[in-house]
């Protein structure tokens, strides 16, 4: 065991203190906040369960909760399925240089304004937008795409597709190539090989990718609001409305805690499933 030195502490402590003070503590503070009460538009420290009973007693809250859960779960499945052929192509069908280029290109959008990209999709999806102009040339439409669940999904896809592809690619790169060749040699068909050999071997990467998709979409308010129309809302839209419009921070805190609890349950079950010993 090494001695604790000033040198060591001056490297290990700064981030620890910063994240404890400005990350962990504010999150725990939300729990306390959820028991405070609002009197005359001012928050008063208290220990009152009124916010919890108010929120849990509302049908709107539970409807929104289930809707958000369904949207995020649906997005995880949809994005995973849509991303898989792309990840498979990048991992197995490109030369090393092209693969590096594809990964390079997929990393860029992850750090590039999601907000403006969502706005840009409005140009494509609106009633007089690019897609409907194109459909018009074919004598079809116009279709309503903006302010529908389809719009929300486009937003989710914009948010998650690059990350899901990247995580899936890393999962697929670790698949033992000799297993695939063995399957081929044993006359296993192409699709069967994908489903019986490739997907089970890459399970960890695929599940983690879907999990990140769930986490991101469950908490996103931009896609459902500006492409999905925001009515009915999702939990994140509810938080922004409750905080910004109503000054009801304690009630927003209740929603936030329910969301975090849900994410924890989903994350632990997904990780447990990903690393479970194969039956």
């Amino acid at each position, binding site marked *: 065991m*090494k001695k604790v030195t000033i040198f*060591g502490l001056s*490297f*290990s402590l*700064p*981030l*620890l203190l910063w*994240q404890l003070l*400005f*990350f*962990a503590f*504010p*999150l725990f503070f*939300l729990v306390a*906040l959820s028991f405070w009460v609002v009197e005359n538009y001012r928050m008063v420290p208290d220990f009152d369960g009124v916010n919890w009973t108010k929120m849990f007693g509302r049908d709107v809250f539970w409807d929104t909760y289930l809707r958000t859960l369904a949207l995020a779960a649906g997005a995880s499945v949809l994005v995973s399925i*849509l*991303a898989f*052929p*792309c990840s*498979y*192509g*990048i991992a197995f069908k490109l030369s090393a240089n092209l693969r*590096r280029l*594809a990964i390079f*290109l*997929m*990393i*860029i*959008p992850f*750090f*590039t*304004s999601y*907000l*403006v990209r969502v*706005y*840009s*999709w409005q*140009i*494509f999806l609106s009633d*007089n*937008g*690019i897609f409907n*102009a194109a459909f018009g040339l074919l004598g079809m439409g116009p279709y309503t795409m903006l302010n529908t669940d389809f719009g929300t999904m486009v937003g989710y*896809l*914009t948010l998650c*597709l690059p990350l899901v592809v990247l995580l899936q690619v890393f999962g697929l790169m670790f698949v033992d190539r000799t297993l695939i060749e063995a399957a*081929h040699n044993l006359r296993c068909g*192409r699709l069967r090989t994908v489903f019986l050999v490739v997907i089970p071997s890459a399970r960890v990467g695929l599940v983690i990718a879907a999990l*990140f998709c769930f986490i991101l979409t*469950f*908490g996103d*308010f*931009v896609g459902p609001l*500006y492409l999905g129309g925001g009515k009915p809302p999702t939990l*994140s839209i509810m*938080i922004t409305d409750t*905080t910004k419009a109503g000054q009801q921070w304690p009630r*927003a805190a209740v929603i936030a805690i329910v*969301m975090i609890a849900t*994410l924890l349950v989903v994350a632990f079950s997904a990780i447990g499933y990903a690393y479970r010993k194969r039956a």
Partner: protein
Amino acid sequence: MNRNWLIDWSLRAYVILALAFVFAPIAASFVFSFNADRFPSLPLGGFSLRWYEAIAEDPLVWEGLRNSVVVGICASLLSTALGFAAAYTDFRYRFFGKPLYLALALLPPTIPVVIMGLAMLAFLSRVSLSGEIHSVIISHVVMCSPFAMAIIRMRLSQMDPSLEAAAWNLGAGEWRAMFHVIVPFARPAIFAALFITMAVSFDEFAVAWFVSGLNETLPVRILGFLQGQVSPRINAIGTIVFLTTMTLVILAQVLLMSRSGGVDETPRRQEP
């Protein structure tokens, strides 16, 4: 290997399709920012710079840009410093509770941004730190430092720990070895972390929206535009934002790829 020409090429075409989906909104923003028509649609109107002129005359846009630059620079310097220190801690020390330490260091990006925003707003206003430019900086350091740490940690994992020990044996003190061995080795990753964290901060709109009060950053300004009418000005601002962040991210990636020799360099230490 039995390869099927058709399947191979359709998969490659699918990869291109996916990239097209990802870059379509970025390209559209760029194209329509030069479009003269007020309502963006096809066919395109004439070429025009009027939307750029419109944002150049908007003092709120300039103020937002200035705030974003200040926040971006401060947040990237601070979070890279913190991230480097934590990555070095992980590289060198084994201690009780290390998994918890790493979790705390890497977890913030998995918390939904609205929840982060609410938590930061509630906490910072309680200690009278909210509604100012430094409130945005504080929150952005929380959100950016995990990226800095992950990038630098990846680079340090390629380093032979005995290099540092060799420096000690040759008489260098710990601080000297740090600045003559560790920092030079990690330099490309440190710069990459600076660029990436600046890009993350420059794009972050949700937490900034909650805590910035009247000191709006550029993305918060964009959010304001979005809540109003459709305006091609967003495309013009968007194009500038895209060019800025894409430059930063590309620079970071080039740094990480060239100096570290890409994936060919074998890691000497396994990830835990």
